[in-house]
Each structure stands twice: as C-alpha cells, then as structure tokens.
C-alpha cells in the first residue's frame, strides 16, 4: 500500500488522475476505514490522505449560507459558536457523537460518505436541506444531500470525485436533534432524528416543519406525511403520529427490532413536537 498526502486541491486531482480508480481509497479521519481494515478488509494499493489539504477543513460564513469543509472534524463543529447558535440540531449531533478521541479525528465528510443509515450528522443535514459540493476532474457540482446518499454505504460520487464541502442555508428555523442509543456515550443510534420548525407561538401551530429520521430505513428519511399534516396545525399530534409509518421501513438487527424502532420513534417524536409547539 502506497501512502500519499497531497497538500493542495490541484495536486490531489492530478494524483487521482494518475491512479487507477479501483485501486485507491480516500482517507479522512479513518474512524470508519481503520476498523474495516482491521476486521480483514483488503487494503487498497494506494491510500490518499486528504488531511494535508487545508482548504478542505473549516466552517465559513457565506452570507445566506454556511459552508463546512468535508475534513472538518466533529470536535471542531462541536466547538464552533456559529454551529452552536444557529444549527442546534447539528451541534447536538456532534455533542452526542462517540467520545473525545473519536470526535477529534472523525470528519463530517467521512460521516456523509460512509452513508450509514445511523450516521448522526445526517438527519440534521437532511432537515436543513443541505447541499453537498463535489469536485472532480470534470469540474464541480452541487447536489442535495438526499440525492447524494443512495443507500447504505452508497453515494453519488463518480470515479475520481471528492466531497469538498457541505452547504447549509441559514435561517432554517429552530432545530433540534434526538439520538436514542443503548447507552449514553459511544453508542450507534437505534433511532435518531432532527426537526427544523418555525412555530407560531400565539396560534400554537407549525408554520414550517421538516423532520428527518435515521436508522429507520436504508437511508435517512424525510417524514413528509406527518410534517404535511402538521402544516399550519399543531393539535392532535398523538392522533396522527402513525403517519410516520408511511415513510419508514425499519429492520430488526442486533441493536433493536423493527417494532421497537417504530414505537420509539413515534413516542419520542410526538413528545418532541408537542414540546416545540406548546413552548412559550
């Protein structure tokens, strides 16, 4: 295995141009890759470390948007005032992510490209309607996160393409994240979800509501049936919570059964929504 650490974007693109696509792997924090190598996955012929390229990390204010470099660590997001103040759900996801040692290495780009149904930054990114920025030999393109992730471990990246950053529109509304794990720290989510809402406090109704849930389908799912029924409405959440069933398809696995996931998601989500709409 040859190890490379390019220091600029042009150098990276040149390097990838010379390597056979099937023979290399991109390395960010390594917290998903290394356990895989260790459990016997064959090592690539070429390992391309992205950590040498400065413009890949950082959180930048772009007026109407913020742009987060794909190599930005979970810990850097957790320590960012901008994320803490304006993107609560994402901040909560980073705060409940693994523990210090992993947060210091794991990157947001790795979490996105790993495309796990349980990835904790994903429900917030879906709920904010984030766009991902992709660079490659053919230039640059931008796609909504929901189109980027197509299945467990599957993304829309073409050969030689790299995830450059993720872009979040500001002023999304109030947001919150919930993670149910089997213990408090270092747990893979049994379910997780993020809610972005604009609430009319007088009328106690949702003017705007987006809900995205993880670990209940092969990819993160928008709960559009429920969110639609709550548009300009805020009453009788318990009566319509079963609408969630129409958007999810959970499975049994070692952590929980499908039935448990359905029940937990509905109970915790109903509680969260009621709190949001009735809060003074």
């Amino acid at each position, binding site marked *: 295995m040859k*190890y490379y650490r390019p220091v600029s974007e042009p150098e990276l693109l040149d390097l990838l141009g010379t390597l056979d696509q099937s023979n290399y792997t991109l390395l960010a924090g390594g917290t998903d890759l290394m356990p895989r190598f260790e459990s016997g996955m064959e*090592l690539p012929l070429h390992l391309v470390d992205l950590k040498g390229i400065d413009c890949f990390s950082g959180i930048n204010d772009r007026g109407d948007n913020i742009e987060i470099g794909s190599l930005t660590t979970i810990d850097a997001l957790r320590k960012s005032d901008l994320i803490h103040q304006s993107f609560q759900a994402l901040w909560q996801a980073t705060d409940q992510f693994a*523990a*210090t040692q992993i947060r210091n290495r794991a990157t947001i780009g790795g979490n996105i490209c790993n495309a796990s149904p349980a990835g904790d930054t994903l429900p917030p990114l879906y709920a904010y309607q984030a766009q991902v920025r992709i660079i490659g030999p053919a230039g640059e393109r931008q796609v909504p996160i929901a189109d980027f992730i197509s299945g467990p471990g599957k993304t829309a990246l073409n050969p030689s393409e790299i995830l450059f950053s993720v872009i979040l529109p500001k002023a999304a509304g109030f947001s919150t994240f919930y993670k149910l794990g089997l213990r408090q*720290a270092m747990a893979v989510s049994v379910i997780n979800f993020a809610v972005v809402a604009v609430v009319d406090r007088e009328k106690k109704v949702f003017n705007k509501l987006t809900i995205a849930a993880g670990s209940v389908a092969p990819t993160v799912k928008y709960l559009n049936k429920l969110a639609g029924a709550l548009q300009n409405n805020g009453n009788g959440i318990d009566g319509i919570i079963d609408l969630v069933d129409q958007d999810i398809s959970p499975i049994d696995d070692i952590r929980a059964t499908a039935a448990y996931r359905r029940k937990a998601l509905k109970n915790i989500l109903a509680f969260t929504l009621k709190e949001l709409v009735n809060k003074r």
Partner: protein
Amino acid sequence: MLYIEDIEYFDLVVIVNGCEVCRRVPTHQRLLDFLRDDLRLTGTKEVCGEGECGACTVILNGETVNSCLILAVEAHGSEIMTIEGLSHGQNLTDLQQAFIEKHSVQCGYCIPGMVLSAEQLEHEQAQPDREIIKQGLAGNICRCTGYHKIIDAVEQKGDR
C-alpha cells in the same frame, strides 16, 4: 498489525515525548504498533483495536486520539505524547499522584489512557465537575474500578 502482501515503506519523522524520531515504517503499520513494537513504549495498551475502549489513547498534536485507528504514516510531522512522556522521571503529575491517593487503579490496564484523557480534559477545563469528568472520560473503558475512584481522583486534582 494489519495484514498486507505488498509491503511498502515510508520514512517517518515524528516527535515522540519531546524527542525527534526518524524510522522507516511499513505504510500499513498502526501508530499503536509503531509505539509499542518499534519504540518499545509499552505504556500504550491495546484492548479492542477498534476505537471503542481508549486503552491505546495518546496525545497527537495536543488532542487525544485512539492510536489503534491511526496509521503511523498519518502522524508524519506530528508531535506525540504517550504516558511515558507525562511524568518527569519519578516526579509524577498532580493527576497521577491523585490516582494513587484515591486508589483509582486496580489491574491498571486502562490507566495510561484514562490518565491522558483526564490530563487533556483538565487542560481544556480547569475544574471539571463530575458530570463533565464522566463525559470527558467516556471514550475510556475500565473493567475493574467501577469508575468512582477514577472520577474522585480527577475531581480532587481539579480542586487543588
């Protein structure tokens, strides 16, 4: 050690516990194995080998990391501190002393990682309360002590 057929090498330069080290290492060698096998710094332990337990914790450029999840080559040009670099000879740090006074150590296997995580926590926050200490040590598993005495030690050190 990760298994590989075609071994490639890399000339690694790192600063370990304040000393510059230049070694030729296989590109697939983990930082953990480089420290333990090549440098004989066996204070850094391996238990799970997959990032779950924290026994292999070292401080890389001022941040705690799991050395089982990092290749030695990734540390090229970096500064590393292992448990061996913490005390000055027999002069233990206040925190190490507190672990002794509070009887926080049983088998000891988790302790190097636990101490480095606690040092790092106190570096970031002068007087962490018990809840913050628990969160700060959440990446370090101990199978012996039940944690209370470890938290006592970190709390006492914070009080000094």
